[in-house]
């Protein structure tokens, strides 16, 4: 549950001052040390608050109210909701529950202190009590939760967001997750869900942020968070009131209580990587990776843990996957539409909608693979947050370039951090082009050789044709032999026209080639030659010419489509944790080296 009021972008201050309630925070203490000169005016900012009526929202452990101070600043006041006494509950039990929830609130505050002041986490101003109830005063985050962002930015009927926008949101979300790791001792949020992530809109509106391609994300609600290495290990079971994570997004280890080594598993940052990837998955695909509302054949609901452990997450189906909705989707994502237009401009003939959808999905698939790695069932198989952030960053930076590459059938820039892989692929790219030209040259030479030698050998051969009411006899002209030998290849190439870089084009070309070949074979077998050897020669020439023609089509397909696909897959970051760990390290020295280069360039 979001602790912050989601105003859908409207300013909370629009409410009049009328009806605001005066709240005095007693026993105020700040989480930072203040000089004696600063203390009075700092404290003054946070102890006398005007709380807006009816704007509060229930959070997990408390209730968050929008408040303003006497200086007009907007603040959030989180008040602990003390548990009500249940029917039949003894005084002692109730007392214990009250103590437990106070302790949980305390712990939330302690966790929040660690992150306060880091970008992306609400700043903490202090805590105190209001009429004896513990409270926390913190920054008011004016914004929209990802839940609502998803609905506002959807490009199709299924609520999918443009893959590019999803990747950028993902990059910024993983940046927050990575940043939690910088905190001394590490920090795990454990409940990342679209309701707990906000896009702050007080500086730039959501539309401006989409244009800008960078999002001001805030992670809120630390009710179920934990330090990776708690400084004190004296938590009793009474203190450890654990709030369940949101099942749709939580990793399996958060959804079951009987896993060996649970305590350790639940302190791992891999929990947040899984949850954040689920959030991005939902943005890109319109639904969370697993459908937890499904029921088994006998009608019993599936346990979320079982569902998530039973099978790997289904492959991400993103907004560009369906050709019939592609144009509609592109109309709502101008940046991708421009990239597609640019790419189309590079082609000799514009690509059809089906192939365009295929080419775009080919690019999007890179993100699907990254997300798939994060959704690994074992914690050790998931990459770390910084590596995912870098991969998504690279994915979005190279998106337009990759769309063009995909349309032209060149290998994509893989979304692995660091420029080396990309540069290596570019080298491979030009090599591939040379190999392709050479192959096609050889095949074309063979085709011409076969056609010409067959023509020379069969020139003037006496033959007759009598089929389907058409009769002819006489000497076969050499030029006709050349034409017939080249015909299948020409038909195949022209049918493939514009699709030399797609699978569909390859299949069309091959089919055309095969049909023409069969037709000519039929014609040839209907002819009667004076010398049977000449007919055999022509059979062989037809086969050889068709084969050579097909080689051209195959060379294009293999080196334009199939091989790049293999190369690309290899270049993607795998779930292998060793490689993921190596990535941040690999980028660091590269940045250090920057210093000298740029000074020299000056």
């Amino acid at each position, binding site marked *: 549950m979001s602790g912050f009021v989601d105003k859908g972008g409207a300013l909370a*201050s629009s409410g*009049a*001052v*009328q*009806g*605001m*309630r*005066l709240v*005095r925070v*007693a026993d105020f203490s*700040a989480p*930072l040390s*203040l000089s004696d000169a*600063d203390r*009075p005016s*700092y404290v*003054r*900012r946070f*102890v*006398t608050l*005007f709380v807006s*009526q009816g704007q509060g929202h229930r959070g997990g452990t408390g209730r968050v109210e929008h408040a303003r*101070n*006497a*200086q*007009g*600043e907007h603040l959030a006041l989180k008040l602990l909701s003390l548990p009500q006494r249940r029917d039949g509950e003894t005084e002692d039990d109730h007392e214990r529950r009250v103590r437990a929830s106070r302790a949980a609130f305390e712990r939330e505050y302690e966790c929040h202190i660690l992150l306060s*002041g*880091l*970008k*992306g986490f609400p*700043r903490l101003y202090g805590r105190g009590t209001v009429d004896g109830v513990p409270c926390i005063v913190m920054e008011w985050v004016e914004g929209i939760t990802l839940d609502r962002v998803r609905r506002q930015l959807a490009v199709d009927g299924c609520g999918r967001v443009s893959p590019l926008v999803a990747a950028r949101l993902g990059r910024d979300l993983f940046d927050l997750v990575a*940043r939690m790791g*910088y905190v*001394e001792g590490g920090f795990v949020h454990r409940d990342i869900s679209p309701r707990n992530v906000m896009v702050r809109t*007080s*500086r*730039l509106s959501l539309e401006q942020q989409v*244009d*800008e*391609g*960078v999002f*001001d994300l805030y992670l809120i609600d630390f009710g179920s968070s934990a330090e990776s290495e708690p400084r004190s290990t004296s938590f009793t079971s009474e203190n450890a009131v654990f709030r369940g994570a949101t099942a749709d997004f939580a990793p399996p280890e958060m959804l079951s209580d009987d896993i060996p080594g649970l305590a350790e598993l639940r302190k791992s940052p891999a929990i947040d990587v899984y949850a954040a990837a689920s959030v991005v998955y939902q943005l890109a695909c319109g639904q969370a990776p697993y459908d937890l509302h499904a029921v088994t054949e006998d009608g019993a609901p599936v346990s979320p843990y079982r569902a998530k452990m039973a099978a790997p997450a289904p492959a991400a189906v993103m907004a560009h996957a369906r050709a019939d909705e592609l144009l509609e989707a592109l109309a709502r994502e101008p*940046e991708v539409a*421009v*990239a597609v237009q*640019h790419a189309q401009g590079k082609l000799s003939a514009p690509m059809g909608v089906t192939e365009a959808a295929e080419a775009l999905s080919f690019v999007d698939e890179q993100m699907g693979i990254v997300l798939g790695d994060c959704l690994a069932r074992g914690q050790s198989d998931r990459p770390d947050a910084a590596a995912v952030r870098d991969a998504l960053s690279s994915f979005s*930076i*190279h998106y*337009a*370039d990759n769309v063009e590459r995909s349309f032209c059938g060149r290998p994509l820039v893989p979304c692995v951090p660091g*420029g080396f892989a990309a540069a290596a692929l570019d080298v491979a790219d030009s090599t591939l082009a040379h190999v392709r030209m050479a192959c096609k040259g050889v095949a074309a030479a063979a085709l011409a050789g076969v056609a010409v030698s067959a023509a020379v050998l069969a020139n003037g051969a006496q033959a007759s044709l009598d089929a389907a009411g058409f009769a002819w006899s006489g000497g076969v002209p050499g030029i006709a032999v050349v034409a017939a030998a080249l015909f299948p290849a020409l038909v195949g190439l022209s049918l493939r026209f514009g699709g030399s870089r797609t699978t569909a084009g390859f299949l069309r070309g091959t089919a055309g080639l095969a049909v023409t070949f069969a037709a000519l074979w039929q014609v040839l077998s209907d002819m009667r030659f004076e010398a049977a050897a000449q007919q055999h020669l022509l059979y062989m020439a037809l086969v050889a010419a068709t084969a050579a023609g097909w080689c051209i089509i195959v060379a294009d397909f293999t080196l334009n489509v199939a091989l790049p696909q293999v190369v690309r897959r290899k270049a993607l970051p795998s779930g292998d944790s060793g490689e993921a760990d190596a990535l941040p390290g690999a980028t660091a020295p590269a*940045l*250090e080296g*920057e*210093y000298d*280069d*740029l000074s020299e*360039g*000056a």
Partner: protein
Amino acid sequence: MATELTPCGALFETMKRYGGISHKDLARLVLSGRPLADGKSPLSRCDDRTWVSRFIVHAPVGSLQDRYFCDWGVAALRVSARLRSRDGKGLSAEEALSLVMNQGGALMEQALRECHQDLALYRNVLERLARGAGYSVEERSELAMVLFVAAGCSANVKRACAYVLDYVKTVHGGRLETVPAAVMDQGEQPGAASADPREQAQALGLLRMVGGLVSGGLHWVQPLSDGVEIGALALGPDDINDVDPDVSGHHLRVWCNEAGRWCVQGLGSSNGTVLISGEDGSETVVEPARAGASACAEPVEVHAGDELVLAGSTRFMLIEGMPESWE
């Protein structure tokens, strides 16, 4: 350095020398992701060192356009965050503030001087931001960074200052626009000290409270006015007469004194006035009840957040800031 130092160059150099952020990394933080005319965004060219060096870091002042950069405030927050979380060897908020004020400040001032910008204005605003009383060091270093980045990106002090003041207004209700008295006294500009301190004070608002809720209108008192009177029979144009019947006809005066401080003074009311401090809830008697018309009470200084209780029942909360932000 052989080439001319531009404000943008100063921003990049400062972060590289003292903040450990390479040019490429800083470019990632401050450049815009919005595509330019050729369909490529500045952000997508960050990997191209030559481009960053030639067209951003060492670009002549006039050639840099706003659309190359993302929102300055957002960029500044990113830079602050980056400075403070560099894999364990991050800078503290104090260090980040000193980076902008001292080492980097000198570089930036040199660059701004070279393009004939108003340095006094830049220093004034920076000083205010960096010394804002009542703000944590984190908040102050963040605001100083906003100004620093804005100056670097715009190469125009006036625009940068206007931007940062607007930023302060939206984030902190405009409170930093007032200069703390301490800054005024030490101000380097001879003209500044002689100005009326009241010009720097912010308007004071009075909110009538009934039963713990805000009720009735919000009354603003401008510092340069003669102040207002509260009383059942107060007749002046801005006077406040929205009071309970036991408040005297002329009960209390509120005004801004020559030092730019807000004061209240009893006007010889019969039921007296009590001030409840917004800081610790302590009570100060402004004027005791039954003091009699002859005994005039001493002026008492008040602050936003304090509460005035007139005749035991009529309560006013004091607030400050931009009147428009409260409407």
